């Protein structure tokens, strides 16, 4: 039976208790260091390999035409691989004893939201997660920022690939120009925050600096012939001016990462995500100070956050979004992660539909600001109905239904509210008892 503090930690920072799991032996911070054995689970899911495959597909279309049977077959494989990848990312939440690692991966994936719109973007998503997000969640934020902002998935999602300096050789030849989407969202969402000290001019200048950042063989590519010539002044400092270089973009991103407004924005987002909506200016300030003093290390943010009394409090103002909730339910049921990885296309689609009905189309947030944080956003009547329907099905059909009273003990220890213990033992059938546990606030809140 888990202790009270284990239940609280699993609720707030992980995906709940998995009864059959050998618990990670170490602190939350220790979960973040060292190798993660699950990294080896899916080979060929890195940016270079995936990008090379996409290039091959494009060449196929060029050489044999979009109607050719071999091309269609390859596209179909690409599509199903994208769906399998999504299940793979999800399976790690269910399987990983280092739950905090997965929660932070999800947090930073949301911070640097991309929302694939076609099968090729779906096919790149796991490479984005594996190369741009996962390796950087416990290091310097500047490394995470540079990796995410310059990754083909992001470059494509926020239209940077065809933003062209109007005075660059290509811009002059083709009469093309800027697209300021990525520049704006980097400042508004990824770094300074919408209240931050930047103006429309800064957005424009940054958009000019970003021209040249594109996609090419192998993934990210810098193309000097479409980079706007001349230096850009952003937030009062000058960048570039010589031959256009990727390093000029990196230099500004490094400065953005160490901006006090960025430090406060990141701290606030972590507090809102892991603790709750209440303003905690003192905690945010301590986190931001520690971050800046450490030279921009994310571990400094986490350390202050985890040592705050709010981290171990037993009130749970947040509601798990659907994907997180589904992982929590499947963990509670000791659901075999292998069967998630080997799920049929039909089951994969059905699962996606269930999550959409709960309000979260898997890995497809509506906009670059990612998923909402407010508890109220996840508990509308139709969303809650969808959760109840899915959890009932999971309790009845996904596993050999366990004894609900034993399961209650196994996942909540002695923290279960009295009404829940009563309801779980008062159900007419075993599966309904389990379903009641799964749809209780104790499993939905964190």
């Amino acid at each position, binding site marked *: 039976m888990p202790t009270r503090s284990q239940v609280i930690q699993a609720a707030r920072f992980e995906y709940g208790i998995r009864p059959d799991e050998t618990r990670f032996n170490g602190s939350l911070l220790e979960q973040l260091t060292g190798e993660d054995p699950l990294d080896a689970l899916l080979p060929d899911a890195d940016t270079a390999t995936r990008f090379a495959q996409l290039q091959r597909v494009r060449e196929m279309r060029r050489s044999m035409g979009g109607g050719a049977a071999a091309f269609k077959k390859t596209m179909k494989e690409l599509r199903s691989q994208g769906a399998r990848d999504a299940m793979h990312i999800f399976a790690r939440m269910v399987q990983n004893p280092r739950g905090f690692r997965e929660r932070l991966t999800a947090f930073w994936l949301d911070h640097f939201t991309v929302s694939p719109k076609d099968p090729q973007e779906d096919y790149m998503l796991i490479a984005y997660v594996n190369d741009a997000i996962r390796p950087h969640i416990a290091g310097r934020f500047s490394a995470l920022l540079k990796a995410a902002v310059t990754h083909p998935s992001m470059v494509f999602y926020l239209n940077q690939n065809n933003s062209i300096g109007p005075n660059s050789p290509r811009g002059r030849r083709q009469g093309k120009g800027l697209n300021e989407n990525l520049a704006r969202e980097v400042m508004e969402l990824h770094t300074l925050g919408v209240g931050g000290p930047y103006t429309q001019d800064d957005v424009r200048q940054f958009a000019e600096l970003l021209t040249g950042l594109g996609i090419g063989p192998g993934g990210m590519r810098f193309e000097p012939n479409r980079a706007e010539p001349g230096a850009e002044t952003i937030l009062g400092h000058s960048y570039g001016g010589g031959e256009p270089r990727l390093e000029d973009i990196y230099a500004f991103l490094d400065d953005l990462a160490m901006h006090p407004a960025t430090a406060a924005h990141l701290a606030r987002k972590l507090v809102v995500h892991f603790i709750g909506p209440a303003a905690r200016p003192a905690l945010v300030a301590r986190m931001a100070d520690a971050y800046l003093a450490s030279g921009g290390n994310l571990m400094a943010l986490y350390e202050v956050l985890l040592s705050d009394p709010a981290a171990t409090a037993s009130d749970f103002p947040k*509601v798990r979004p659907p994907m997180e909730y589904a992982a929590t339910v499947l963990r509670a049921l000791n659901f075999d992660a292998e069967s998630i990885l080997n799920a049929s296309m039909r089951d994969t689609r059905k699962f996606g539909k269930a999550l959409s009905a709960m309000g979260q189309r898997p890995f497809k947030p509506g906009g670059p600001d990612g998923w909402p944080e407010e508890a109220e956003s996840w508990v509308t009547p139709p969303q809650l109905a969808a959760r109840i329907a899915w959890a009932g099905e999971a309790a009845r059909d996904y596993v050999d239904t366990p004894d609900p009273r034993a399961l209650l003990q196994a996942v909540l220890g002695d923290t279960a509210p009295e009404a829940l213990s009563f309801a779980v033992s008062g159900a007419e059938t075993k599966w309904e008892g389990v379903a009641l546990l799964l749809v209780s606030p104790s499993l939905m809140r964190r």
Partner: protein
Amino acid sequence: MTLSRRKFLIQSTLLGCSAAASPLLTPVTLAAAPGDNRLVVIILRGAMDGLGVVRPYGDANFTSYRPSLANREGTQDLDGFFALNGALGDLMPLWRAKELAFVHAVSTPYRDKRSHFDGQDLLETGSNDSAAAPKAGATGWLNRALGLLPDARQETAFSVGPARMLLLDGPQPYSSWSPNADLEMSPQTEALLAKIYADDPLFADSAEMAMALSAKTDATMARGREGNAKILAAFAAARLNEETRIASFSIGGWDTHNNQSRNLARALGQLSQAILALKSGLGANWQRTTVMAVTEFGRTARENGTKGTDHGTGGAMVLAGGALNGGQVFGQWPGLGEFDLYQNRDLQPTDDVRRYMGWALRDLFGMEASAIGSTVFPGVDMGENVGIIA
């Protein structure tokens, strides 16, 4: 969310009662409904390009600003100055019947940061605060308007679709359901569920409404893609034919930074189908209906480097319905000259979108203009009636 708690807490003491006797399923009956007029508010998320929808081809700058986007192919002339984007062509019969109108060059007070998310929050809260994001506990203007309706009850206003709408959030009770949602459980489980949610109002209120509405609606009528505007509109029409008088839902897909011709047409197709589904679903009630489609801001007057447009300021609203004084483009046209534009970039807003929404509330539901100016849209000078309702 602050949905009504009604009988849910009492329900938890009635373990084992039958579904038929469940107070959840008993409709509340009150003496009077708040009139026969209907209002549908559609939030167009992502910033609709007003200039690309109601195209000022009579303004010479328009074609020079938009070399690849301004061609007139497929557009429908409206009044000799404006032409309608061809993707809304199916709505032309409504225009001729004076059941379609537009308002140009309007905006919320939101300026300069051009963030979708702040812009949408401001549009939905109706706040007068042009810069700051709304604080926790912010309420939607449509919820505050409900507070001015003397006979409003839970069913009067309906949020359609799975997502929460800030527009309707607040202390006044309202209903929320999605056309393809469904919920079935045994009476015993329902009673036990009530018990475990009893101390958590967020879950208790939501579950109570889910059970009541699930019993009333047939989910099988809504087969099709989730988020399909036509399905949302058909569902809204069905509710509006019953006790509901105000319905709201969202249509996304307006953030046309790239390849705007295709992407804007796709979003407009959704809007067009939604309006037509409302009209056919509402039948005779269409004559008493006003549809207002509003967006967080407009887009740049000039096209960008990728055959699209970037975030702007002044935008347009789309109005439809038999209650409308339609067949015209409302608003004061600011012009597109370099010095007419806002920051030499965006269409200059010449009026506040909230004034149009406010006068619609006044004309449809008889609320006092002064109450609208103080409660629904605090700080808005309501001025003269904009005259969009016949």
